[in-house]
């Protein structure tokens, strides 16, 4: 039976140039890793007695993370730039971001090897939390469209 593990220590690492030089993106309040859902195609034949669809290609999915942020934050501006470039080609300053989610479940020490999920995305939405109280904290949800398959790997904490 799988052990129970908590999300504490999960890293959201992004290469804003769409490569594999991933770095953390400030304080992440939480993240929704991308789901995986397959499509189905009609597979009925005339002599079938049971309608069993044929497994199809993978459906699109989204990756969302919630970050603490404030206007003027230099690190946060990378998200804004990526949104502006969302329709551009891949490359430096382009519209494709590399994402690596590193999970803590292999261990808890700084030298541990963390299991990862790696994929590319394009920015879809930046939703800022309302500043409707004097004590509201600047938070925003960043939603990305996953555009490549999820690759499993590892990240060794330096």
């Amino acid at each position, binding site marked *: 039976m799988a052990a129970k593990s908590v*999300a*504490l*220590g*999960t*890293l*959201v690492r992004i290469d804003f140039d769409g490569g594999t030089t991933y770095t953390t993106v400030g*304080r*992440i*309040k*939480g*993240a929704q890793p991308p789901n995986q859902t397959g499509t189905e195609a009609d597979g009925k034949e005339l002599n079938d007695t049971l309608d069993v669809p044929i497994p199809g290609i993978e459906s699109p999915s989204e990756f969302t993370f919630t970050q*603490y942020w404030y206007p003027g934050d230099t690190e946060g501006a990378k998200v804004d730039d990526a949104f502006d470039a969302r329709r551009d080609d891949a490359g430096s300053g382009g519209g494709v971001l590399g994402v690596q989610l590193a999970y*803590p479940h292999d261990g*808890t020490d700084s030298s541990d090897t963390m299991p990862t999920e790696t994929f590319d995305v394009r920015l879809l939405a930046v939703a800022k939390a309302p500043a409707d109280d*004097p*004590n509201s*904290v600047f938070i925003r949800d960043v939603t990305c469209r996953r555009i490549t398959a999820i690759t499993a790997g590892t990240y060794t904490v330096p």
Partner: protein
Amino acid sequence: MGSVDESLVSYLLGRSGITSLVEARVSQATVPERESLPYIWVNRGASETLDDLSANPSDTTAFYESFDVECVSGDLAKAQLLAAEVKSLHKNRGEFGAGEVQALIVSDHSDHYRPKNIGDDDGRHVASVEIEIIGYTE
């Protein structure tokens, strides 16, 4: 290095509107038995952190800290005048004792709050307020 408690006391004692009424009589945590009136008593209440996924414990410090503040006087009007001085700190920010704050939110205390500086027959009047200290850093 101080603490948010000490910074609050220091901040209150740096306000001339307050010291003109209580001089240096701002007590922290322990209810004074024989303090001259009027005085201010402060006590740390609830605190709340803004958690994130980081596994670094040093990243986690209280972001919201609330304090019970009681303005104690033998004269009702003076207790309320003192409370008004404390309430005038509402929405202040910046330098705060040994550190800085992003915001001070001051409000009347809840109707359910039971003041600690009042007995059955000691003739004291207490005006209770709550100070929320947001984003304190040193």
